[in-house]
């Protein structure tokens, strides 16, 4: 049995669908364990992606990894899980390592693909500059799956939801405040990202970036200097010290492409670079390049996207 932990506090995220799809493709029956108050109707949609059973513990809020580790360990024992899967998101990064110690089960952190024929699993290493193939030496294995590594796949199917008491105890972590920007697409989950850097010259000029993002249905991001001088919020900063992302399409305007920035985006499937400087290092990492002024190119790009979208309906 493969067991997937998902956080269903805000309904089913794309990460949840990806992890269930991944578990199904590993080839055994899939059980899901979750901690939030999501309705049975919401959760049973996971049947469509391959889950057969869902264990739901509504007693814990999911803020304390030491509770979640107990919940997942209890569920693993109940279903006899040989593989346990998390998303390699902020919850997975906190809980999966704890579970590895608790179960003495090897953890493949940040898997980007299904196992190779020899059973090893590919992960990004050296900040995306190379791949490593991790072999697990224990009988039980834990895999945390990097977001956007696999497409959710609907295969049709049904599943049942069962109340489950994970005996997770009380939380040691007191939550004082939570700040979430309204309506924004979380960057690590975004399939399309429009990003800009110092070439935009000031925060008042971000309209051209946002217009293109809106036309595409993309998230917005920025380079480190832009976040450091406060033009854009820190959670938009992609790169070595910010968020690492791997969208299908990354559009970078006015970003030179320093090695630290590339480390955060080199997993992107397709990169488009817009820069006035034809010698900008980013062009070496780009699939498509435009040598030109972002203030002229971005509005034209937006119009071209709108024309294209109009033909699609």
């Amino acid at each position, binding site marked *: 049995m493969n067991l997937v932990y998902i956080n269903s506090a805000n309904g089913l995220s794309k990460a949840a669908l990806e992890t269930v799809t991944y578990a199904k493709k590993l080839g055994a029956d899939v059980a899901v364990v979750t901690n939030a108050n999501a309705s049975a109707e919401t959760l049973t949609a996971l049947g469509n992606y391959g889950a057969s059973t869902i264990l739901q513990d509504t007693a814990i809020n999911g803020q304390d*990894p030491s509770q979640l580790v107990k919940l997942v360990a209890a569920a693993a024992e109940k279903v006899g899980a040989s593989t346990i899967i998390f998303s390699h998101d902020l919850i997975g990064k906190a809980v*999966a390592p704890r579970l590895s110690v608790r179960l003495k089960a090897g953890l493949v952190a940040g898997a980007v693909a299904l196992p190779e024929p020899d059973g090893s699993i590919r992960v990004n290493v050296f900040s995306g500059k190379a791949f490593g193939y991790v072999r697990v*030496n224990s009988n039980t294995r834990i895999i945390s799956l990097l977001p956007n590594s696999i497409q959710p796949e609907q295969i049709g199917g049904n599943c049942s939801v069962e109340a489950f008491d994970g005996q997770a105890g009380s939380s040691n972590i007191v939550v004082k405040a939570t700040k979430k920007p309204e309506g924004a697409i979380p960057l690590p989950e975004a399939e*399309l990202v429009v990003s800009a850097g110092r070439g935009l010259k000031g925060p008042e000029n971000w309209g051209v970036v946002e217009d293109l993002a809106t036309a595409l249905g993309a998230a917005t991001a920025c380079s480190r200097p832009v976040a450091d001088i406060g033009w854009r919020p820190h959670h938009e*900063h992609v790169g070595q010290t910010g968020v690492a992302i791997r969208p299908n*399409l990354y559009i970078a305007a006015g970003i030179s492409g320093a090695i630290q920035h590339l480390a955060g985006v080199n997993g992107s499937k397709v990169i488009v670079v817009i820069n006035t400087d034809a010698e900008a290092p980013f062009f*070496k990492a780009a699939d*498509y390049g435009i040598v030109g002024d972002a203030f002229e190119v971005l509005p034209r790009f937006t119009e071209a996207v709108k024309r294209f979208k109009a033909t699609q309906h």
Partner: protein
Amino acid sequence: MNILVCISKAPDTTSKIAFTNGNTQFDENGVQYIVNPYDEWYALVRALELKEAQGGNVTIITVGGAADDAVIRKALAIGADDAVRIDASATDAYFTAMQIAAYAEGKGFDLILTGKETIDYNGSQVGGMLAEALNLPYIAIATKLDVAGSTISCEREIVGGVQEVEVQAPAVVSCAKGMAEQRIPNMRGIMAARTKPLTVVAPVALDALTTYSSYSLPAAKSSVKLIDPNNLDELVALLHNEAKVI
């Protein structure tokens, strides 16, 4: 407050990444090692700031061979009081975390800090593993850290936002950008680091849970296709028909 800061060596960001021995080993030839930036800039510097404000002691710990003493001295030069090196090759995150846990157990550390990940293996694992092994609360990927008495307050990243949380010491916190600013060691610090205590500890016997069976490099990127800045319709068509991303 007694703080233990876990540090790792990491190849300098500009290092050429290559592999030897049939792609089973990282090629260290010509590689310059630094203190992993997350461990140094955020975990260590914040620990020093807390010590400077409230008193206490900052110990750094690493798992590695004698060649790692150079990065240990660098961390001491920045201001840590003393250092511990567990004399073993850090084979995987589990091995590393369990060695540090075996040392830290019963030593009375109020706070154990790690960087949010290393820039070589990027696994983000050691902090959570240490917390579980020592049965302590764990705050992952914190961007702010303050201590008042025995209350540790952090701002941590959550999916799509940030959250302010509190926990009672002792606890493990993994540290990310925002927590502190890089410090450049001065000459006095570098001189003092030479005589600060560095204890070498024998490892406990245990097996790694994972092995890197091999490595590979991404396929070389084909050269960039340049698009006329006056013909964005062409770019949109390529993104749709050729790249199939929109």
